[in-house]
């Protein structure tokens, strides 16, 4: 074996030991039968997969998909102007990027909990609105779809800003001037030049936001309450309270297929993904 191949060995070991082997175990579990007291045993069956086709789970999957799409769209819409602003702000770019990265320095759990304190009935928003006399009753801001969406967008936004920034930073500004020069209004310049030219960054941003958002369970657990169970919560439940590992394994594999299908559909070029 040449020296170069030896360099691959650590990565190969990690991938095999920490990705393929666990995936194999998950696949094996998904094909087993749930034992009467939890646990799992033979015979092999596809029962766990069949159970997933219950409309109840279909609804959960659809809801997860939908909230991931909403999160992605919102992150792109909010992230693009921010990335544009940073890429055009000269020597202060480094500082702004640090600010975008700043939330990563704190625990994800703590940041999500912070939203509980902001959104709950006695939280900051409701207190201020009550104090101003704009509302009589606290608004139901927490434990609903909107709260989960806010939490997801908040956590994913930096992941969208960074790849968009990196393409905008390389964007040749004379293209923008050329478009204006050829009679395009600012809006036309944006839709016909800036967006197409920065499409690779937008695609990368979409993947980086969409994939984790689809599998989220902590955000929906903390901010969503019982009414917004997502597929991540479903999987988590099967492995903890429900003690139905085969079904949990099947659900997580189905989730993975959905993610990969989404990637294959949107990724036109492999290099776009990362």
């Amino acid at each position: 074996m040449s020296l170069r191949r030896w360099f691959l060995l650590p990565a190969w070991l990690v991938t095999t030991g920490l990705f393929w082997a666990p995936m194999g175990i998950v696949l094996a579990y998904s094909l087993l039968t749930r034992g009467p007291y939890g646990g799992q045993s033979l015979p092999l069956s596809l029962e766990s997969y069949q159970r997933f086709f219950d409309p109840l789970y279909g609804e959960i999957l659809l809801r997860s998909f939908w909230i991931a799409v909403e999160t992605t769209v919102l992150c792109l819409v909010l992230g693009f102007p921010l990335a544009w602003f940073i890429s055009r702000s000269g020597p202060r770019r480094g500082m702004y990027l640090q600010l975008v990265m700043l939330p990563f320095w704190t625990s994800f759990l703590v940041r999500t909990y912070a939203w509980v304190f902001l959104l709950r009935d006695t939280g900051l928003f409701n207190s201020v609105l009550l104090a101003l006399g704009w509302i009589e009753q606290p608004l139901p801001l927490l434990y609903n779809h909107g709260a989960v969406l806010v939490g997801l967008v908040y956590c994913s936004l930096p992941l969208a800003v960074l790849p968009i920034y990196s393409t905008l930073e390389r964007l040749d500004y004379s293209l923008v001037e050329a478009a204006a020069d050829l009679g395009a209004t600012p809006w036309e310049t944006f839709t016909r030049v800036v967006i197409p030219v920065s499409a690779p960054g937008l695609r990368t941003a979409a993947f980086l936001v969409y994939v984790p958002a689809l599998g989220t369970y902590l955000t929906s657990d903390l901010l969503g309450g019982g009414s917004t169970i997502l597929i991540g919560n479903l999987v988590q439940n099967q492995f903890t309270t429900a003690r139905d590992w085969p079904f949990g394994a099947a659900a997580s594999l189905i989730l993975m297929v959905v993610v990969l299908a989404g990637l294959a559909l949107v990724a036109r070029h492999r290099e776009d993904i990362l």
Partner: protein
Amino acid sequence: MADVLTLAGVSKDFPTHRAVDCVDLSIPAGEFHALVGPSGCGKTTTLRMVAGFEIPTTGTILLEGKNVAPLPPHQRNVSTVFQNYALFPHLTVRGNVEFGLRRKREAAPLAQAVREVLELVRLRGKEDRMPHQLSGGERQRAALARSLALAPAVLLLDEPLSALDPNLRKQVRLELKALQRRVGITFLMVTHDQEEALTLADRITVMNQGQVEQTGTPREIYLRPATAFVARFLGAMNWLEGFGLRPEATRIAAGRVPEGARSMPALVLDSTFLGNCIHVLAEMPGGEKVTVEVSRFEGMYKPGDRVRLWWNEEDELRFK
């Protein structure tokens, strides 16, 4: 001919300095005009103000009689060929040319207009290429086509030849001039290359430190420079006591000089063979060093030769 473009008292202040200082410029329709000067002289800023990428701090820019100084680029009937061409990388050659046209015309004349303008710049058959599949010269012509398609009142060119390799540059220069004659559109070109300006332009404006030093035909600028700066910037110059002399107007003789000519003794320091001519470096009694351009038929001069330099009085260039 009426002036298609007139700049009156145009200035541009940037936070740190004044880039353009009270520039006046009139360009008649159909003229090929070159703005030249060293880097930082304000020529590019001037061009960008005509294009609409910069708004003048003061002054008016009359385009076809209308003040366009405060208008954004998309509301002006000018078009720019950028230094790096700024072709849209996600569009084909056709897509690039159609970009500006699409807003103006319908589908059928559009296809014809694209065909015509690509014919003009000899890019027929390359309609479906992407910009990265074109050579440097083709990219430049695509950028020209994209701008010419709009039939602008003035075509602005920002160092249009500087991105080409030197061998190609001379050929493209001739093509550019022929193209301008054929389409009859007013060209305003920015360049730092004096040779480019002299060969291409009908008239030249020399700028220095944000101000116009002189405007005139290439002959006027070269033969009758208004300032020492212009004389130095366009072509080489020998400085003798109180006046300047072009190297090719400075003559050399081993013995007698022609009747009526002015002359001085000199010592040959060096002789450089340049192929088409020879540059002889000579020192005057006062210590001034002078370059003399000599044809190879005029004989050889070696370092240490004692010679006489002579010239005609009308070739002396005097400045304030």
